[in-house]
């Protein structure tokens, strides 16, 4: 259950080791609707993997299957070789942290408190020790604050530690959500549309932030609609269309794939396939 992460190995060429995250044959059905259909995905240590797809392709559903918010109808998700328990808080303590597509900060808590809540699984002080306030408790609190401040420094929000998170501008809220997720000392960070609603400068800053997180030894799985962002960032990209993974590979493989183009831009009329021709072209 420890998530001590060693310095990042080289992103490529480390495939010989067991993958960090291994989802195999994940199927998620809601009644008659199959939102995620037999998806396999692996993330190796030190990798940044992208997950793209048109709206409604099942990306977020797949994310929720990985983080225990949903229990997959079929298939297994393994993290460092062990099957993940189907409870969000246990997944987090196993070492997978996430952010949300629509920011879900604790709006009425301060910036620092948000990050401290993120450290919940990495601290153990219970109610009794909080009531007794022994030296061990004080040490742990001080240490927690220190680590939280380090993270805030890392994302550049340390000067706003005492602000309520609801008062932060949008871009900083996104950053804070990432810091809060990182506070649980994850081995794998799942980012759900981290640049949604950002302008180009902010998107570039987010790119740098993601690289910096990877350099800390944390692997990243990211959902995004911004193609330039994804292709700049990711070592590998998987494309999800109508719940199925249609292709996975590097930038060129994905960009040149017929089915991806069809899914995003629609097929030419005469050669219409049964692919999702009607899905909207995003970006």
């Amino acid at each position, binding site marked *: 259950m420890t998530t001590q992460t060693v310095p990042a190995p080289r992103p490529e060429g480390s495939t010989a080791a067991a993958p960090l995250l291994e989802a195999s044959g994940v199927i998620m059905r809601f009644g008659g609707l199959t939102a995620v259909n037999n998806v396999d995905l692996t993330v190796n240590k030190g990798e940044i993997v992208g997950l793209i797809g048109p709206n409604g392709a099942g990306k977020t559903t797949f994310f929720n299957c990985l983080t225990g918010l949903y229990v997959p109808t079929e298939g297994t998700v393994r993290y460092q070789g062990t099957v993940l328990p189907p409870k969000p*808080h246990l997944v987090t303590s196993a070492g997978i942290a996430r952010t949300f597509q629509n920011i*879900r900060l*604790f*709006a009425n808590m301060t910036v620092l408190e948000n990050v*401290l*809540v993120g450290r919940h699984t990495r601290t153990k002080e219970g*109610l009794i020790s909080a009531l007794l306030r022994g030296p061990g408790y004080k040490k742990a*609190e001080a240490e*927690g604050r220190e680590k939280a401040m380090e993270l805030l420094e890392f994302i550049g929000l340390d000067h706003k530690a005492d602000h309520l998170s609801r008062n932060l501008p949008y871009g900083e809220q996104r950053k804070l959500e990432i810091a809060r997720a990182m506070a*649980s000392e994850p081995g794998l960070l799942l980012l759900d549309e981290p640049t949604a609603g950002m302008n180009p400068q902010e998107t570039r800053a987010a790119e740098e932030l993601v690289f910096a997180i990877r350099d800390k030894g944390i692997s990243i799985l990211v959902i995004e609609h911004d193609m330039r962002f994804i292709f700049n960032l990711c070592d590998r990209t998987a494309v999800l269309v109508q719940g199925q993974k249609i292709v996975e590979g590097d930038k060129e493989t994905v960009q040149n794939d017929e089915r991806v183009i069809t899914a995003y831009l629609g097929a030419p009329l005469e050669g219409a396939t049964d692919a999702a021709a009607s899905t909207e072209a995003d970006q």
Partner: protein
Amino acid sequence: MTTTKSPALPLPLPAAKALVLAGGLATAASAFIHWTWTSEFPGDLTIDGYPGGLQILTLTAGLLIALFSLPLYGVKGTRWLTPAGPNAPLLVLGAAAAATTWFTLIAISTELGGLANLEPGGWIAGVASLLPLIGALGLPQTGSTVGLPSSGGVLAITKHYLGAFTRLVGPNPDLAPVKPLNRWVETLIIIAVAALGLTVFTYGIVTEYGELFIGFLILTGLGTWALMRAGLISRLTALTARHRGTTTAAAFAAAAAFPFTQSDDHFASVGVNILIFATVALGLNVVVGLAGLLDLGYVAFLGVGAYAAALVSGSTSSPTGLHLPFWGAALVGMAAALVFGVVIGAPTLRLRGDYLAIVTLGFGEIFRIAVNSLDGVSGPKVTNGPNGIRNIPDLDILGFDFGQAHTFGAFTLGRFANYFLLMLLVTAFVVTVFSRANDSRIGRAWVAIREDETAAQAMGINGFKLKLLAFALGAALAGLAGTVMAHVSYSVVPDPYQFAGAVPPNSAFLVAAVVLGGMGTIAGPLLGATMLYLIPEKLVFLKEYQLLVFGIALVLLMRLRPEGLIANRRAKLEFHEKDDEPAAPAESDDAPARTEPGPAGLTTAGA
């Protein structure tokens, strides 16, 4: 930071200043002449040179006005009282003096039947109390002025002028922190504030008739507003935050001094009941204020504690026949309530929001019906059903018999005073538990669950386990208070432990005390519980209209201060979102979000 600097009444500034000071002194002086001819009106306002009852309130208001008008003349040292300027607080104080005095005059003439019952002194007081208000209207105010009402009935015009008055006073200031004073000076100030608080509270508790209590509420309510507008409250808050230990000790000492100010045990019994009610409300605040779980059956835990303590108290009607010392009974009461809390919480806490509230309401009633039935007829004989467990012997801790009056030097402490001091220790314990739990990893997790349970779980928080912990802790604290309550009231019967009733404690009053006082704070539920206990007690003279007036008062309070009397930082922002936005000065670099100040920006700019 200022917008309009024009007075509402066109008076020359020196005249306005003089009118305020002289009016204040005249108001104070008018309390020394007789206002009516008969001592039939309670408080006896017929004696010259000896202010009685409501006249004392007028006197206090007049003296406060005189004190706060000293900064107008630049008297050295008095500026500390009004960091945000004396003009707006004087306006509110002027209204306070006028309202208290005119309330008295109206009460005299309606109760005695006619204006003829007012002696010239009453008319003098009425006129004198209007002078400071007129003078203060002639001072330049930072708030915005409003013209005459367009049209409408009496209600609409009243509403218009009340609104205009509120706007004229302006919002409470956000002050920059000031340089700390000498440590000893600050300690002395804290002690003085605690002593003042004790005086005000004691005065409120011992008011003997409803009219005086209403006058007291008018004066303290408006007076507190004035102090807040003066910036004095936020200055004192900053000061107490710097010396938390001293403040806690001073507050505790002031509360402990209460029974020593009483020669009669009656008000000590009111005091101990307030303390029990307030302590249970603080326990409920863990559940409602921190973890955000609405529990409408909370009083059952108080009942569990009381019954458990009664069963092991050595009472003749207890079937167990056990007689444990108090610490044993307290532990049994806490443990029983804790177990009950877990048993109720485990199945119900899987629900959220309204569903949880309904289910806890049901469980609370189940407790009451169950103890009613355990009478040897419908069930095993444990609680004697509606007769309850009676003849609970008084506590005896280390040879100190709580049932006897004890004399310490010049002071005599009666039975209820003894229990008051014991209950105060319990309250102090609960306050400590609350504040330490709140400021910890567990407390943060509770608040996170309240804010967004899904996100909290994604942060690794086991939502169910922590909610159960909050439920169990809250239950145990109520159980502890119940053990004292069993001994204070001689007997334990099922009746008080219901959802709603005319007198506290019951679940509805407890929730109201927490919400009215301020969720998530310590002082809030204590103050809220005190008010909710005193108001029905003092409004007995309204007879059948008592609950109606009480209900209207609650609705008004929640309309005016939705975040509660004492708001914590978070709640304040939650309920006054739009007022807050342009205020934060440190965020001026977020220019794009704030290019249009809008109407909200204009009104708060005067702060």
